[in-house]
């Protein structure tokens, strides 16, 4: 990294200051989003130069006591123990960034939210009495104040670095909340839904992945959750009426990684009950 020669310059002064402390926390999740941080191979040195990695069990057993300047929180809240732990994380952290579909929408485990958790436990476990779980899986923001959310299942390296860079320099992260379609069009991918009749969640899903799946001829799976003003009911009507998708299949498409995100959950519930995405009358 380039440094000004002048030792009294603003950058040199900043470097002499204590590096901000980073902590990475895991709740109910698969670790995939944390791994994205380790995946930043080319940038790890620059990151370590700017941040003190104080708590990151995935990478190091060394633990530095809080408080922390920046906490990255992965996972959703699914147990009574996690309910308490997230409060402690918030108390110890100046800035909290929730990372990934679990932390921002409940994750795939939020499929339980529309089912009976006791019945599920009895089906899966020989001794369900050992389990101590909540009836629902919920995002971090339902429990504590979250300063910024990174969507995705998993998050992308580019967005993670951009968010950390923005945190370090006190600016707004430069990414929007528009649809995946905008990324498709910018990269020049020809729409798979219009040109091939492939059901795609892109028009109601938030950009961030770079429109990865359509670039390989697949419809968007909705990994980044609902876009800023999603009209899910309209898209599901089109899937059913024009693309011949069965109502049950629209419900399954909406109930994946972001099943509990309100825009997806509501449309799925309406289709589940009436067979029509907007509910009875639609």
């Amino acid at each position, binding site marked *: 990294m380039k440094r000004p020669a002048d030792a009294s310059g603003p950058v040199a002064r900043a470097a002499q200051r204590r590096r901000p402390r980073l902590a990475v926390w895991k709740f109910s999740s698969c670790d995939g989003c944390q791994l994205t941080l380790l995946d930043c191979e080319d940038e790890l040195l620059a990151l370590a130069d700017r941040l003190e990695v104080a708590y990151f069990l995935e990478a190091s057993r060394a633990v530095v006591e809080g408080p922390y300047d920046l906490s990255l929180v992965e996972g959703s809240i699914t147990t009574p123990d996690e309910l308490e732990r997230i409060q402690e994380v918030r108390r110890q952290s100046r800035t909290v960034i929730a990372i990934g579909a679990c932390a921002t929408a409940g994750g795939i485990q939020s499929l339980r939210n529309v089912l009976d958790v006791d019945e599920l436990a009895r089906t899966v476990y020989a001794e369900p009495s050992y389990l101590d779980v909540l009836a629902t899986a919920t995002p971090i923001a339902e429990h504590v104040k979250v300063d910024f959310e990174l969507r995705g299942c998993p998050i992308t390296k580019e967005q993670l670095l951009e968010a950390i860079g923005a945190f370090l320099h006190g600016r707004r992260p430069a990414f929007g909340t528009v*649809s995946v379609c905008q990324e498709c069009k910018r990269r020049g991918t020809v729409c798979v839904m219009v040109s091939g009749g492939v059901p795609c969640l892109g028009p109601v899903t938030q950009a961030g992945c770079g429109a990865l799946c359509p670039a390989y001829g697949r419809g968007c799976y909705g990994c980044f959750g609902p876009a800023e003003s999603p009209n899910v009911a309209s898209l599901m009507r089109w899937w059913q009426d024009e693309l011949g998708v069965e109502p049950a299949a629209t419900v399954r498409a909406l109930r994946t990684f972001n099943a509990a995100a309100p825009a997806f959950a509501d449309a799925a519930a309406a289709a589940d009950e009436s067979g029509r995405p907007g509910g009875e009358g639609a």
Partner: protein
Amino acid sequence: MNGSAIWLGPDAPERVIAHLGGQGFRVVGPRVEDGVLVLEELTAGDSLPTGWHDRAAPGSYRLERREGNGPRARERFGYRVGAQAWKRYLHPPELRLFTAERAAGGGLDLHPEKGPEAPLALIGVRPCDLTAIAVQDRVLMGGRHVDEAYAARRHGAFLVVVECTTPGATCFCASFGSGPGAEGGFDLALTELIDDERHGFVARAGSARGEALLEALGGRPASAPETDGRRRAVDEAAHAMGRRLDVDGARSALAEGAGLPLWNDVAERCLNCANCTLVCPTCFCVTIEDVTDLSGDVAERRRRWDSCFSLDFSYLHGGSVRRSGAARYRQWLTHKLSSWFEQFGEAGCVGCGRCIAWCPVGIDLTQEAAIAIEQRRQADAMPRGRGPAGRGARR
């Protein structure tokens, strides 16, 4: 140009590509890749698709190969316009404007982006798209503030137009007079004539560079039946449009259209996905963002295509002004068909039909415009100040 028309064989596109490529142009034209039509960079030896045609409908576009041995199986330009427009090359979707580095000893070193190295040659521009380029010329270069990035790509660009003889189901260029023929604004115009007796192109130059190209390509003067055939084919195409638009009616209805009931109905269907604006060959809106690297010593200013369907597009202090889908669709339709006249002296639509085909839920602006005209008429038939769409009503 007054030079007479030349007859060229069916391999004219390839010869044009090879010639312009040899002259140092960055040649761009249509290709079929993975079964879809894209505009790609071409080099000498590349050929354009043969025997493909397209079927467009609201929310649907299919590219198909013609079967059998009929002459159409050899057609060079049987398809019309795909999802991509030429603005991809003239007004790129993403562009770094400059990089700034902290200088040793304080201050900033600015590194502006270098412009394009070679001039563009666009092969196979349809007349509607040629008009769209002229529309963007006015928006991005016509006023006091010239868009440098656009001007750098546009100046010296060589335009090879292909006239339309078989319009598609979503085409309505004839409503604007922006097609199906082309009378100027190009360097070279090709019109494909294909039947059992003949297959080739009537070629006309539109500039001195075009004359020089025609001369270099050789060919013989087109015969009277060939030039007549070209004229007839284009005239017939003008009467075979898949759609039509009452341009004047839409302009005035939408100028007073803010309170019309149709907006809420469209909002029920519209996904706010922005596809219509991004495929539209005249939409020009961009957003600017600044980013830093982790060190904070290097920053970049980038610009990328934006859309009036984005919430941030209308963000003023305190929030976005156009929050509802109704307000955003109204902005799009009104700008394209009405307020563009006030702003730039012409329509913001050329009738290419892309927004109809590539809207994932098939919203058709010709249909919505017709509804607006009808609702405006009904509202005007009511006594003033009454009814939901009385003049001046705003939401």
